[in-house]
């Protein structure tokens, strides 16, 4: 991982769910609470060219994560980010409460709206207006900073093999294994191991 802030044994990787990103990271950031672990950096300038993120954003498994201020314009020097589909809500798994929103963008090279779509994808997470967790009124005073200012972004190249996860073992039974299982009494057949 190349980051000394996280001292975990080998095999631990940063693979957050949408819910974790919104609740544990983005919400704490917007509430001015320290994030734990504090691995996602703040990139003020936004939007970035995707290839500029290397070395600046937190990278794990070919994906980059960073915070930024929500910007109205998503045009960079060489292209622009264009939404792929409508914004989706992010729910908690336990209570099915809406805690944030996620928007997918694809990077296009050139000038809008005639750009050529490239393989870079960005997920941008934002909090709902008025705070994510419906805090009790007495806490409202702390929310002076507009919670929708901050967004959390994940950028990756969709052409990169989505590897790293599962360690190459895969979570599917290969078809060959299926065929062998279908044959009777595999245990009885001595195959050299």
């Amino acid at each position, binding site marked *: 991982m190349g980051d000394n802030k996280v001292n*975990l044994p*080998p095999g631990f990787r940063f693979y*957050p769910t949408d819910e974790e990103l919104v609740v544990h990271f983005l919400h704490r950031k917007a509430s001015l609470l320290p994030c734990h672990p504090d691995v996602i950096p703040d990139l003020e300038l936004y939007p970035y060219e995707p290839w500029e993120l290397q070395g600046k954003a937190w990278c794990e498994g070919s994906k980059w994560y960073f915070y930024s201020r929500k910007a109205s314009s998503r045009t960079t020097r060489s292209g622009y980010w264009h939404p792929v589909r409508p914004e989706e809500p992010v729910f908690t798994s336990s209570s099915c409460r809406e805690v944030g929103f996620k928007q997918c963008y694809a990077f296009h090279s050139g000038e809008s709206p005639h750009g050529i779509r490239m393989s870079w994808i960005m997920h941008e997470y934002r909090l709902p207006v008025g705070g994510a967790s419906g805090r009790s009124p007495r806490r409202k005073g702390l929310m002076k900073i507009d919670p929708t200012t901050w967004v959390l972004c994940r950028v990756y190249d969709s052409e990169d093999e989505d590897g790293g996860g599962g360690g190459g073992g895969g979570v599917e*039974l290969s078809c060959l294994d299926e*065929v062998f299982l279908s044959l009777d009494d595999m245990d009885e057949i001595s195959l050299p*191991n």
Partner: protein
Amino acid sequence: MSRGMNLSINGQSQVPPGFRFHPTEEELLHYYLRKKVACEKIDLDVIREVDLNKLEPWDIQEMCRIGSTPQTDWYFFSHKDRKYPTGTRMNRATTAGFWKATGRDKIIRSGSRRIGLRKTLVFYKGRAPHGQKSDWIMHEYRLDDGAASNNEIIGVCPAGDAMSEEGWVVCRVFKKKNYVKTLDSPQSPSGSLAEARLHSLSGGNSAILNQILSYMGRTCESKSDLLDKLNVVVSDGANLNKLSYQTKDNLSSRFTHLPRLGSSLGPNDHSNIKPSCYQYQPFDDVFLRADESPAFQVNQHGMIRDWATLDRLVASQLNGQAEVSLQKQQSYFVDDPSMSTSLPPHDDEKVPFPSQKRLTRPESHHDRDHDHQQNLHMYGCDNDFWGITTSTSPSSLSDGPLRYLSA
């Protein structure tokens, strides 16, 4: 609160949010299993020991939880014991069922160096040999770098032994994914809607292939059991692509060598019709087209109910060369060494085919139709198997491809 990246605080494991345990195979073998076998203390108790004979797969989830983050796979160490002192079979039975190993072990490499082997097992509920297959899969990793003896790996650990079949293994248990990947899983970004759709299509249409195979199987008496069982093979449509690339290396010694049915290179390319020549077509075309074909009809259970429907399905694939893949798929499952078939050179003999009108295509496709018809006869042990070759005389068939069959 301390910096708090330690996994165990007061015996309770704490994983920082967003992090999950997803080791590579190299990490599992080279770091964790090595340490375990050498009796080195593995810090932080990430992977626990489990007695496989005492835990069902669903219990392993609880036992092997790491942190509070949702998990899709679970890891543990286990010590393999032989079932009988002199046998080679491992004792993997639990109260509710048993683990059954699949085929050959896969070699795990670190760079170019072999470091271990991986065995895949599936959990069956009930008792052998009548167990009911479940979706629980286990990958069992053991150290084996080939040339070096196990003693070197084990070191001075008194519990180690030199037998490669016994000893510590590290295992990953997970539930098989069937069709659609969840869209909000951490590893598959939501941008994979198209991919999910493909999987769902494959899954839905693999049922069609099931039916085709089961119909084929029923007319070949000795094969019916095999083919029925193999219907479960195609339940995971997303993986059918892999069969085509693996079968060549692994099944060629067990199954009939069949020539490539060379429609992708053109109908007259006879030079490619050789027993040892394999080229595979992806199955995606089959499944996607079957769904979109207007001629295709299934009843509410997704079953093909009559030959006409089956014929239409197959006919609808002709444009996409997909029927060639289909035929090849079937050929691998016909495990009869005596049935050494070879496609005769493409000659002018036209086998009458009542539905030929429907199959008539522009000239470039015509010969492919012929291949298709011949293939249909090859795989039908029963002359009237398809119920549509009523005008075919037995004598013409005996001169045709069927003469090569010895069913």
